[in-house]
């Protein structure tokens, strides 16, 4: 089955600044794919290129089998929810959908009422968009994207600015849409939340795509990390340095040490610390999460001298 979105060797520069460097990734049909990375990593630029909104220097992008610059030829099968206010404030919620439907050019597919109901704002149909809260505006943007027959839904930072309840509701909505057969591409820097719904992730940093794999593959490939508390800390650091294959990643201000044990088992690390006369108060193997995968990648990048914004 061809990918819903295929980006191959994308390069995009702003003057002398290279915003995206040779990025390649795919969004398989039926997946919830995350385009993840810190602020300024090139996510929005990549999306803008992929959606035909921004010319790029080189590479090739296909959206549902159509080149990105001809995305309008997909006939509304691609729908996008952009970060920020992209509504007509002077129109009501229902009128905003009608406005979008006229651009779409057909009245088939999901109706306005269905879209409003699905996003939980049916009771706001007559309210002016200008008077809605951030969360309600986000839902209306999604409702607008859902009218017609979209197959690929692209969301740019859909969780930004939402409170905990709003985030939870939004994630539930994405899962529901996925269950209805929609392919989703979600750009976000909220890794813990995204991990609960994603089936696949592409991680981008400093304009470079570092990983593109299914979530299972990403988490399996992640090396175990240990959080160690041992006193005196300088002796613990020295003991860890003597262990072959063990890397000290970070010494936090509260003297907590973050360690990559490599082939050494946690028990061996503990034994070495005790043998060095350290009082070990905590040795916690960290569960592999999207966040830990991401942190490892940040560490790798920093180790290679790449500047990663915090």
């Amino acid at each position: 089955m061809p990918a819903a979105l295929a980006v191959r060797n994308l390069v995009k520069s702003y003057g002398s600044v290279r915003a995206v460097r040779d990025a390649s990734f795919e969004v398989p049909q039926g997946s919830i794919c995350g385009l993840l990375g810190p602020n300024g990593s090139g996510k929005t630029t990549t999306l803008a290129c992929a959606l035909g909104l921004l010319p790029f220097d080189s590479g090739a992008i296909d959206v549902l089998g159509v080149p990105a610059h001809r995305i309008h030829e997909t006939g509304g099968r691609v729908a996008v929810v952009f970060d920020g206010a992209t509504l007509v404030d002077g129109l009501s919620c229902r009128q905003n959908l009608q406005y979008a439907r006229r651009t779409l050019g057909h009245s088939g597919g999901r109706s306005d009422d269905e879209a409003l109901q699905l996003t939980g704002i049916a009771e706001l149909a007559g309210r002016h968009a200008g008077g809605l809260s951030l969360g309600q505006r986000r839902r209306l943007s999604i409702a607008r994207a859902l009218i017609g027959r979209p197959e690929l839904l692209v969301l740019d930072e859909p969780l930004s600015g939402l409170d905990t309840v709003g985030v939870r509701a939004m994630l539930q909505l994405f899962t529901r849409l996925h269950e209805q057969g929609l392919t989703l591409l979600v750009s976000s820097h909220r890794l813990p939340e995204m991990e609960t719904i994603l089936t696949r992730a592409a991680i981008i940093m400093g304009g470079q795509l570092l990983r593109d794999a299914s979530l299972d593959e990403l988490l399996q490939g992640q090396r175990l990390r240990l959080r160690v508390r041992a006193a005196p800390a300088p002796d613990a650091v020295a003991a860890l340095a003597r262990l072959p294959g063990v890397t000290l990643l970070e010494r936090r201000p509260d003297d907590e040490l973050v360690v990559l044990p490599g082939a050494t088992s946690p028990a061996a690390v503990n034994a070495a610390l005790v043998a060095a006369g350290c009082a070990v108060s905590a040795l916690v193997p960290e569960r592999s999460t999207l966040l830990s995968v991401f942190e490892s990648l940040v560490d790798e990048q920093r180790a290679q001298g790449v500047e990663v914004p915090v």
Partner: protein
Amino acid sequence: MKGTLRVLSAEWYRARHSRVLAVGAFFLAAVAALRVVAAWLADRANYAAAVQRALSQSRPAPPPPGPGNAWSPFVDGWLAGLTVATLLLLIASARSLAGDREAGLLRVARTRSASRTALVLGRALLGILLVLGALAVTGLGSFAVSSALYVFGPITEGGFTIYAQDELRAELLSALLATVAPLLATWVFGLCISSLARGGTGAVSAALAIYLGFDLFKEVLGPRQYWVFAAFNPSFVDKSCLHEMSGIARGMSDAGYSQALYAQNLWLPWPWAAGMLLVACLVMGRRAL
């Protein structure tokens, strides 16, 4: 072409439902009507002054004037409405692409079904509807009040008919015909500026500055000003064909464009509009949305 029509349909829907159109139409009709009322009040004030003068000189007061001929206030009212309409159209078109780009609406339309060219052409076609609408509401506003306060009849002087009603209608029709093309070119000029600007406010400011700047300084260009489409628009420093029609409605025999200038008025705005539309399409074809 389908994409262009879809954009036109969407923009027309937005205009109709966002109250801007209704408020704008009412405002333009009111401007035209108020211009007629102002002329009528000025006539009454002149008569009152004449009565006061006569009484102060112990002469009998002059008889009250008749209702007067409606043609002159009617054309002046229409002209006033269209002068304001030109500026409103310019503001609306200048805000159009730049404002929607700023608000992210162009991105939404682009990704769902509209090509970049369609986004421009659909808005250009909307201009035709708005220009015709502006002509209609200003004309109706002026006509309604003119008919209530004055009487339409031939222009006469000393019992001699200078212009019969049929002639006046024909002249007015010609003048209106000459007004359509420059107004459309003005709309496209706004779109062109809009395509180049970074934001809606900047686009409106730039468009108004250029347009009003030309209006103020066009006199310096002499006859060469008529090589710019804006010279044919109803404006504050008015050189339009409709302004000449106002002279005709006052019975001035030397009023009216020469045949050559009238012909230039009819054709010149079209290449301007086409050129500016091309620029807008080319710019929007390359810009980040």
